């Protein structure tokens, strides 16, 4: 009987620990990691129909990347509002940070669709929305460890390239504007 009680107590203790761990994990709003990524040498197309050498764009200045699509209903608008707010904060310095949204629906996202999307968010120079062939988009997703076979199974991801050491801050989840600005400040973008 005593042994049984001890066993029950032990199991209860483990359960409490697990619940506590789980609750602790739930307190985090998003997951932040530091990563090294190697960029693929592909040519994508921006909202103006201009060809963009992706690798060069990623090395030009402080860069923030996300993966979205033009008819997304829920998470892409939130990611895009964060970009718009950052540009507003940067004011006339908006071009000091290169914001890059990459389409995960290249069939539908023509340059015209990209342009209209950016207009909806009152984007300023310095925010490019890129499309391309599916295989090139796949390569970019792979490079960021963000590959999804289908746009409807996408997830919120923001990638910030630290101008200091070239490392990438990978943020998984949706941030509020203050959190996003704080992440930018941490790497010296603001």
């Amino acid at each position, binding site marked *: 009987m005593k042994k049984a009680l001890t066993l029950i107590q032990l199991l209860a203790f483990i359960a409490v620990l697990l619940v506590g761990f789980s609750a602790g*994990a*739930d*307190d*985090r*709003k*998003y*997951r932040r990691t530091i990563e090294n990524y190697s960029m693929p040498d592909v040519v994508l*197309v921006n909202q103006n*129909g201009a060809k963009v050498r992706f690798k060069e764009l990623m090395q030009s200045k402080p860069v923030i990347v996300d993966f979205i*699509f*033009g*008819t*997304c*209903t*829920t*998470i*892409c*608008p*939130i990611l*895009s*509002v*964060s970009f718009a*707010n950052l540009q507003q904060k940067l004011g006339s310095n908006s071009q000091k940070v290169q914001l890059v949204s990459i389409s995960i*629906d*290249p*069939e*539908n996202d*023509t*340059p*015209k669709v990209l342009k209209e999307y950016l207009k*909806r*968010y009152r984007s300023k120079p310095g925010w490019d929305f890129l*499309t*391309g*062939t*599916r*295989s090139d988009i*796949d*390569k970019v997703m*792979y490079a960021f460890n963000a*590959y999804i*076979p*289908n*746009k*409807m*199974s*996408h*997830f*919120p991801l923001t990638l910030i390239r630290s101008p200091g050491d070239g490392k990438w801050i990978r943020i*998984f*989840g*949706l*941030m*509020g*504007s*203050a959190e996003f600005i704080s992440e930018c400040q941490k790497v010296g973008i603001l």
Partner: protein
Amino acid sequence: MRIPIRSGQGNYISAAAFCLVVLLLPVWPPTSYGATDKPSPSSEELLKLGERMYREGILPSGEPMNAFVKGDLPVPGTAFTCASCHLRSGLGSIEGGVVTPPTNGPYLFKPFKGYSSPRYVNTPFLPPQLVKYNSQYYQKPHNRPVYTDESLANALRSGIDSAGRVMNDVMPRYLLEDDEMKLLVSYLKSLSSEFSPGVTDTTIRFATIVSDGVSPEERNAMLVPLENYIRNKNQADVHDPRMIRSNQVRSTGARSRLMAAVTMTSLGVANRKLSLSCWELKGAPETWRGQLEEYYRKEPVFAILGGITRGEWQPIHQFCEDNRIPNIFPITDFPVVSQDDWYTLYLSKGYYQEGEGAARFLNGKEDLKDKRIIQFVRDSREGRALSRGFLETWRGFGQKAPETITLKAGMKLTAKSLQRELAQKKPAAIILWDGPEALKTLEMVAVEKNRPSIILVSSTYLGKSMLSLNERVQKFTYLTYPYGISQTPEERAVQLATKEITSSSMGSKVFSMEANTDATIRISLQTQILTIILHSALLDMRGNYYRDNLLDVIGMDMDQDVPLYERLSFGPGQRYASKGCYIVQLAKTGLVKKSGWVIH
């Protein structure tokens, strides 16, 4: 991995901050609809105002609604409309790991117990196992008591639900005046509150459409697979207790539960038979509208499946738009090309899409920059649709429209006139939108000294005659080809050599060029695609038989690997499922790709 959500305390702080923002806002200007001497709007007009708020995020004053998301992100309601996430039907969605619960009247004004019962098959949600499996970031909607007008208004403003819980902070908190709120709440009460016409307790009625002039072979190519699907569904013994039991197995494995959830038959579909009527249209297209109205009056249907006519789809498209009837995948090469229309979902833009593909291909050719291009257009429905797709896309690139020479019906392009055009204008490329007659023109061009390096033709307009392009003309003839092409062994080897498994390298589809040029086989394949999409949509509707929900559900569908097309893709509001078009050349080995499926 599950992404955590805000702690309760944080949310209350956000809510408090939000309330403070609301209090500090200037007094809202009076809305225009209630404060003047104008007669009071009718209840229908008031519902329209509410609908506009819900769908477009526009207030009765014409100003955008304002809102906050994620606690502190100010957003215009036009970018975050209610319909964005809850969808047009209000039945909700799951997207990017965010679960959006229903917001239509029947669900708001009764207690929510969506996840407490195993009989979730008739809730509009995906089963929780599937949500959990798919989601990295989600918050399962909690059980809650029935909403009242007041608690609903409170939820929309502060994000506190009727149980007093703080909602997911991606739900916008809207800044609305009382009279504006009243309009929105009234609209929500009416939204998807009764099943659409065509649905009874025992049957879901569908119709298809065939006009006269359609050959018996083409008619059968569409009707037979459709009727087979309906018959098979109705004969399937979905009430077999073994089948139901097998779907309710309480397995300890998450994967088994997921499988059970995915394969579970919707009780709504199981309890209803499907019926299919064939609406025959006679005479001139101008008379079709009257005939359609009469068919619909006698027999209201839930949706129109497929359909085939000779010529434009426009009269049927408009009928469906006006009566709010979904039309899924009509068999037509002449769809209405529109960015805003809602009720007809096409397989592609047909000939227009080939014209688009040609423009995108030529626009990407650096060596053609500022060079002369001539477009020969047969004055036919096909020629005009191809030319329109080309010109609208070409102008969209900021390019000057090419010289266009119209070939009247029956008019043949003579060697002499062609010689003159080539000698005088020396075009770098020719676009030849003509049917099988184009073969003779290509033969004439082959012997010309001033022959351009590219002549673009439409494979669909050429039909089977494209297979007889001889070697002499193959080298300068480029075809728009809106169907899938089998991989060459070399392409497959390159894909397999890479370690990255992508959607395009997971399997190798086999397409038949000969079959694709055969209209009858093509129609049969297109109808099979319709039945595949319809079947999964009927299950995903989970017993919520509202027409807008049918289109919402298809819009949220995963991209599909189907016969005939390289890829079908969907998305909220997207109305053309196949969006690509190869540019190819014909060679001894078959079709040689000269572009990607999608050209930008």
